[in-house]
């Protein structure tokens, strides 16, 4: 599988009036064609910021590390090259389509805009392609729909329209930030199946950011678990869910209801502040496997089994 996107040692620092906020701190992963990578974490874990940092959509933040897009250094790209990559080679889908869509332009025009920016199609070709795209994302009566405005679409349909725009220029990679969080469960089901089908049929890569482990389990091939801006564990979904090798992954899975037990295994305490990064493991204060070494030094990412990487001193104890 050819690697499309490779991220290494990514760090994002926001400079605020109250000091520095280390939103992302040493994150790395890669995505290939035809592959779905899930990034999972709770509020403030840095998963959305990571996604935005990749396409350099963060303004006023200090981004360091390496982001490599098909061999090219993204952090060194000039504005024109960036413009062609965003939307052209990498499509983006956001959580709230109503905020991402222009409320005063018909959907058809918003799809056409993307086609004007990233393809050589003439007006007739763009119209044809726009209809194809609506069909691809499962919006019926395309001709009528192209003339309608975002407010005439339901939540699920808006998200489909967002996906159609993101797919307009045939991107090699799609970045989706909580694309189904605002949707009802039956609509979420439809959208997730649509995304998975697009990856399988078009051979696209997909990075799916979510807080829902169920979405990861059913949709993704590989998973990256984040906590407090740091990467805890990555690996293929099946082994990570069956035998998590980071104490946080294990705790998160245990806290999910529906496993049968009477009491959930809650994680005590709350997520740490990001203005003063912990010297040791960020999860240590809430961790049931805490050892003295966890507070002394930050655990480094290391191979714990083939294809599974974990930054946890207790990785062996968890096996």
């Amino acid at each position: 599988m050819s690697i499309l996107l490779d991220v290494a040692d990514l760090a994002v620092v926001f400079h605020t009036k109250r000091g520095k906020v280390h939103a992302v701190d040493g994150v790395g992963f890669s995505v290939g064609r035809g592959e779905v990578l899930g990034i999972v974490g709770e509020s403030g874990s840095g998963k959305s910021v990571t996604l935005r940092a990749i396409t350099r959509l963060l303004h006023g933040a200090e981004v360091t590390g390496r982001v490599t897009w098909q061999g090219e250094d993204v952090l060194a790209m000039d504005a024109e090259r960036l413009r062609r990559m965003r939307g052209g080679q990498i499509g983006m889908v956001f959580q709230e389509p109503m905020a991402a869509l222009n409320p005063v332009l018909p959907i058809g025009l918003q799809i056409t805009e993307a086609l004007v920016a990233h393809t050589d199609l003439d007006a007739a070709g763009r119209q044809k392609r726009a209809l194809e795209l609506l069909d691809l994302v499962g919006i019926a009566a395309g001709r009528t729909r192209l003339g309608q405005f975002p407010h005439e679409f339901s939540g699920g349909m808006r998200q489909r329209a967002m996906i159609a725009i993101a797919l307009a220029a045939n991107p090699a990679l799609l970045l989706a930030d909580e694309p189904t969080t605002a949707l009802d469960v039956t609509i979420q089901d439809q959208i997730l199946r649509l995304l998975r089908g697009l990856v399988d049929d078009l051979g696209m890569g997909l990075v799916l950011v979510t807080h829902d482990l169920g979405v990861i389990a059913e949709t993704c091939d590989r998973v990256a678990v984040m906590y407090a801006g740091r990467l805890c564990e990555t690996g293929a979904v099946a082994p990570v869910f069956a035998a998590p090798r980071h104490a946080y992954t294990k705790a998160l899975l245990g806290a999910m209801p529906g496993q049968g037990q009477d009491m959930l295994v809650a994680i005590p305490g709350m997520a740490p502040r990001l203005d003063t990064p912990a010297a040791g493991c960020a999860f240590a204060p809430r961790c049931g496997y805490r050892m003295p070494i966890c507070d002394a030094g930050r655990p480094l990412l290391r191979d714990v089994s083939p294809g599974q990487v974990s930054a946890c001193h207790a990785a062996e104890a968890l096996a």
Partner: protein
Amino acid sequence: MTILMEAEGLTKHFPGRRGLIDMARRAPRPVVQALTEINLDIRAGETLGIVGESGCGKSTLARCLVGLHAPDRGTVRFAGADLAGMTGTERLGFHRQVQMIFQDPYGSLNPLMSVGDTLAEALAVHNIVPKAAIAARVGELLAMVRLPPDAAGRRPHEFSGGQRQRIGIARALAVEPKIIVADEPVSALDVSVQAQIVNLLLELRARLGLTLVFITHDLRLVRHMTQRVAVMYLGRVVELGPTADLFATPRHPYTRALLRAVPQLTPGLRGRDAAVRGELPSPLAPPPGCAFHPRCGIAEAGCSASVPALEVRSGAWPVACLLAGS
């Protein structure tokens, strides 16, 4: 088992919004049919789940049950007494017995009042304890929901989301109610904190012998927490049965679709076909007959003709589907 609370034929409609053009045309004001003909009993000591997607009426039902909305038609009876016919004193007594926990504790707590004052107010209104004992009781309540004693002097904004929900629970428990109606109490919380609050609710339910009505869109939580569950779709209960049995053998096509749509924690289970096609219809104009029929995989001509009643058909619990027996 004694029935503590009973809803009969509960119907609640809200006036919808009309655009300027419709107003000028004198078009009739649209009506949001939030609840239609709900029959539901709540048994003493049980945890009843009410589950459904947006616009199914679950929150309106919660508000009708605690008396925050007056239903258009139908009655809510508590311990045999009709809520609509209660005098002021009787109503005060009702509110002492039936309390509510809201999804957003920040929106339901007074931001200017300290947590201690909020709890003390509830105690004073209902004369739960003598004035001199209020401070001690506030301390007990905070301990019950595992907040530090110094929380009493602080205001809601100083707490995290999970802690605020603990305050919301303490406020509801202050008056020693029999029933707690919890409307999406953990939906805004992260998984790790959600588990803390769920455990707290389960523990308090057992310790205080509470009856709990748990309203949520999260089917995993319903299965985990409840003994009986009512599945709602567009203002009506479509299936009502024991949670474990209903999850094992759902009878209404909508319940089946809903359960299939929930992402499972076992990797690789998702097939290519969606659990159910189409969108949720608008409660402004519910489809005729069974509201689910336009999305249903097994619908027949009769399904759009009449609304199926919620009744025991061939199984052990009531289902509102003409085809549930076949």
